[in-house]
C-alpha cells in the first residue's frame, strides 16, 4: 500500500494525545498545592510540591491498602495459575468426553455479572466469619479469575505443536511428566502473560472489595481511593496522588509486557 495519505498519522497523534491527557492532568494536579487546584487551571506546570504524596503516607497510611492489594491480587494469581494450568492442559491437549461442554461452561461462568453473586457470597463469608479478611477477598476473586486464567491458558497451550509431549512420551515419560518437563517450559511466556493479566484484573477489582471489607485495615487500593473523604471538601490532591500510585504497577507491567499482553487479549477473544 503506497497510499501516503496523512490521515493515519493524524488519527494516531490524536489518539495518543487523548489517551495521555487525563494522565498528564492528574499527574500535574497531584503535584499542585490544594489551594491552586481549581483556580485558573494552567496547562503548564509551575510551583510543584510533594505535599499530597507525603500526606498520603503520613496521614492516610496509604501503604496499608497497597499491602492489602498486593497480598490479595498475588494470592489470587498464584492460586489460579497453578490450578488453572492443570485444568487448561487437560482441556487443550487431552481427549475426553464432555470437553467442549466443560470449556463452554467455564467461559460462561467468566461472563457472569459479578453483582449476581454478591448476596450469597456475603452471607457465606459472614457465616464463615471471613468478612474483612484476606481469604474473604481471595475466595470471591476466584469467581472471575479462575475462568479467565483457564480460558487464556487453553488458548496458549493450543498453539503449541501437537508432537511436543508425544515425543517425550515415546521416550517413556508419563503424561504428567511430559506436561511438567516439556509443556510448562515451552509455554512459560504464555503462563507469564496469563499471570500478569490475572494480577491486573485482581488489582483493579472493585465491587467485591467494596462489598466484603469494612474498614481501612483490609481495603484494597481502588476501594481506599474511592472512599477518600476530607473533613470539609473532596481532597483532590491526595486522591490524584493515590491514583497515580495505583496506576504505577499496572502501567509498568503493561509497558514491559505490551506485546505479550496484546497477544494474550486477542488469543482469548478472536481466535478462541
Amino acid at each position, binding site marked *: *500500500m503506497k497510499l501516503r495519505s496523512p490521515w493515519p498519522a493524524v488519527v494516531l497523534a490524536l489518539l495518543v494525545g487523548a*489517551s495521555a491527557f487525563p494522565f498528564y492532568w492528574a499527574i500535574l494536579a497531584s503535584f499542585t498545592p490544594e489551594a491552586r487546584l481549581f483556580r485558573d487551571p494552567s496547562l503548564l506546570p509551575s510551583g510543584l510540591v510533594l505535599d499530597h504524596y507525603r500526606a498520603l503516607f503520613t496521614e492516610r497510611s496509604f501503604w496499608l491498602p497497597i499491602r492489602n492489594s498486593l497480598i490479595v491480587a498475588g494470592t489470587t494469581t498464584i492460586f489460579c495459575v497453578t490450578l488453572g494450568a492443570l485444568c487448561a492442559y487437560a482441556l487443550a491437549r487431552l481427549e*475426553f468426553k464432555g470437553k467442549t461442554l466443560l470449556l463452554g461452561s467455564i467461559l460462561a461462568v467468566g461472563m457472569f455479572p459479578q453483582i449476581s453473586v454478591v448476596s450469597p457470597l456475603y452471607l457465606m463469608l459472614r457465616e464463615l466469619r471471613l468478612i474483612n479478611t484476606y481469604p474473604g477477598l481471595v475466595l470471591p476473586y476466584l469467581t472471575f479469575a479462575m475462568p479467565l486464567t483457564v480460558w487464556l491458558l487453553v488458548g496458549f497451550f493450543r498453539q503449541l505443536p501437537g508432537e511436543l509431549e508425544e515425543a517425550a512420551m515415546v521416550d517413556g515419560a508419563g503424561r504428567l511428566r511430559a506436561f511438567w518437563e516439556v509443556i510448562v517450559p515451552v509455554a512459560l511466556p504464555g503462563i507469564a502473560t496469563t499471570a500478569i493479566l490475572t494480577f491486573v484484573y485482581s488489582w483493579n477489582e472493585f465491587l467485591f472489595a467494596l462489598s466484603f471489607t469494612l474498614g481501612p485495615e483490609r481495603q484494597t487500593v481502588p476501594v481506599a481511593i474511592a472512599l477518600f473523604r476530607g473533613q470539609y471538601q473532596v481532597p483532590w490532591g491526595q486522591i490524584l496522588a493515590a491514583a497515580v500510585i495505583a496506576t504505577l504497577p499496572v502501567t509498568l507491567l503493561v509497558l514491559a509486557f505490551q506485546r505479550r499482553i496484546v497477544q494474550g487479549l486477542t488469543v482469548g477473544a478472536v481466535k478462541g
Partner: protein
Amino acid sequence: MRGAERQPGIEQQEARIAWTLVLPALLTILLVALFPLLWTAWESLHLHDLRMPWLGRPFIGLQNYGEALSDPRFWGSLGHTAFFAVTSVGLELIIGLALALALNRAFRGRGLVRAAVLIPWAIPTVVSALLWRFMFEGQSGIVNALLVDLGVLREPIVWLIDPVAAWVPVVLADVWKHTPFVALLLLAGLQNIDTSLYEAARIDGASAWRQFRHVTLPLLRPAILVALIFRTMDAFRVFDLIYALTGGGPGTSTEPIALYTFNALLQNLQFGYGSALSVIVFLITFCLALVYIKILGADLTGGRR
C-alpha cells in the same frame, strides 16, 4: 487434529488423567460461582431483611420479582443501563474501527501507540472514573475552563449536578477506557484479512469506500461481533465507573442496575429483594449472550468442528 489411532485402554487412561487435572479448578468454580448463583436464585424467593432479623426468612415465592416490576427506581436503573450501553458501546465501535484502520496502515510509532491505548485499559476503572470526575468537577474544572476559553460555552456548566449533563463524563470516561480494547480486537481481525483481496478489488476498479464496504466490513464481521459481545455485556454490569464518578447521582439519575442492586443489598440490607434484582441482571446478561452466540455461532464455528 491428532491423527494417531489410540487403543480404548489408553483413551480411558487419558480421560482419567484429564478429569484429575480438571477437577481442582472445576470444584473451585462450582464452589465460588455456580453454587452462589443458585443460592441467589433461592434467596430471591424469600423475604430476608438483615435490618429486621426478627422477621426471619420466610418463603414468599415470586413476590420480590413482583415488587421489582412495580418499582420505578428499578425501571429507571434499567433504562440508564441500556442508555449507557448503547451510547458508549456505539461510540467505542465507531472510534475503535477508525483507530484499527489507521493502526493497520501506520508503520512507525506502533510501540508508542500500543502503550498509549493499553494504559487506559489496564488501570483500575475507579481511577479512570476519578480522573474524569476531576476534569469535570465543579465550576472551574479543566473542561469548563477550556470550553469557556474556546468560546464553546458562554459560562461554565456544573456537569455533575445536572441529570443530563452528568452522563457526558460517564460516557466519555468509558469510551476513553475501552475504545483501545475494541481497536485491538478489530486490528487483530484486520490483520487476518488477506491483502490480495484488496489488490483484486483495486484491479476491478473498486473505490476505497467500496473496498471498505465489500471487503473489509464483511470479513471483519466476526471481530466486530466479538467486540460487541464483550463490550455490551460489560456495559450492562457497569458499576465501578459510575460509583466513583457520579455515585448514581444527581439523585438516582445515572444509577445503573448493578448499582441499584448493590444499594439494595449492602446499603438497605434487603437480601431477598436485592437477590431478585441480581437474578434479573443475570438473566438479562444471559439472554444477551444467547442472542450473540446464536448470531456469532454461524460466523465463528462455521469453519470448525
